[in-house]
């Protein structure tokens, strides 16, 4: 079955058709890339994290604060990801070059010598630019307040 990204106007945008098989393959690829971002954070490979973030990347943190790409990368120097668990992945298709991946994550982190643990509902907006998928936007909402 073809997934039509443009309800009402399929005849105008035939290139916007993506089959459910293609969508499933894209979902699996982006879930693997999403996991690799946290794996890179855990082993403190910040260049690998930076490479996945698109130019212009921004983030709204779980405390409801806005961070630029430079601010996010700077903060990662001081935050140690000790462990993490990802679950409940869902893909929201936007168009053939953009999807939102949502999931729940539990993280254990250390910051300034103190350990923190929390669960948040996350979304990553992935965009394909020059053949490469990168994250352009990320937001977290706490599950337990």
């Amino acid at each position, binding site marked *: 079955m073809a997934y039509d990204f443009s309800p009402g106007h399929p005849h105008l945008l035939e290139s916007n058709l993506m089959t459910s098989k293609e969508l499933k393959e894209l979902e699996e690829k982006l879930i693997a890339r999403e996991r690799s971002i946290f794996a890179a954070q855990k082993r403190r490979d910040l260049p690998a994290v930076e490479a996945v973030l698109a130019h212009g990347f921004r983030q709204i943190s*779980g405390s*409801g604060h806005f961070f630029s790409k430079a601010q996010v990368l700077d903060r990662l120097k001081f935050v140690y990801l000790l462990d993490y668990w990802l679950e409940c992945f869902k893909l929201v298709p936007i168009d053939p070059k953009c999807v939102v991946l949502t999931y729940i994550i539990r993280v254990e982190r250390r910051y300034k010598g103190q350990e923190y643990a929390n669960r948040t509902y996350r979304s990553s907006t992935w965009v394909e630019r020059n053949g490469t998928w990168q994250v352009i936007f990320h937001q977290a909402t706490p599950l337990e307040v």
Partner: protein
Amino acid sequence: MLAKELKALEEKLIAKERAILAAQKRGDLDAVAGALADGFHEIGKGAKFYSKADVIKALQDATEIADYSLEQFRLLPVHARCVIITYISTVRRSSRGNNEAARAYRSSTWIEQGGSWRMIFHQGTPISLSPTL
């Protein structure tokens, strides 16, 4: 997209964003539904995943909005037919004596479909006073 076109798009989408809240305040859920794309989803209140139908149902049951303000709009272009708008909302609901305003940092993803812009994804995060992790 030229800077001038981007500025015009930003103003148009900010107006649409405000129109959605205005429609919620006056209880015009058809206008809200009309602004949302068919495949719309939201990470909303209580960090739950909502479909378009879930959101409209939740709005039918929601307490009336007494007052609201939107500020600090920023536009993030994704590509020619997709942009993300972020902003801070302050919403006061008229529930039984509890007149506290809820502040949240929000994002809306807008796409152009068949010549009109609709919201396809939305997420809100309550703003906490401790800006830690």
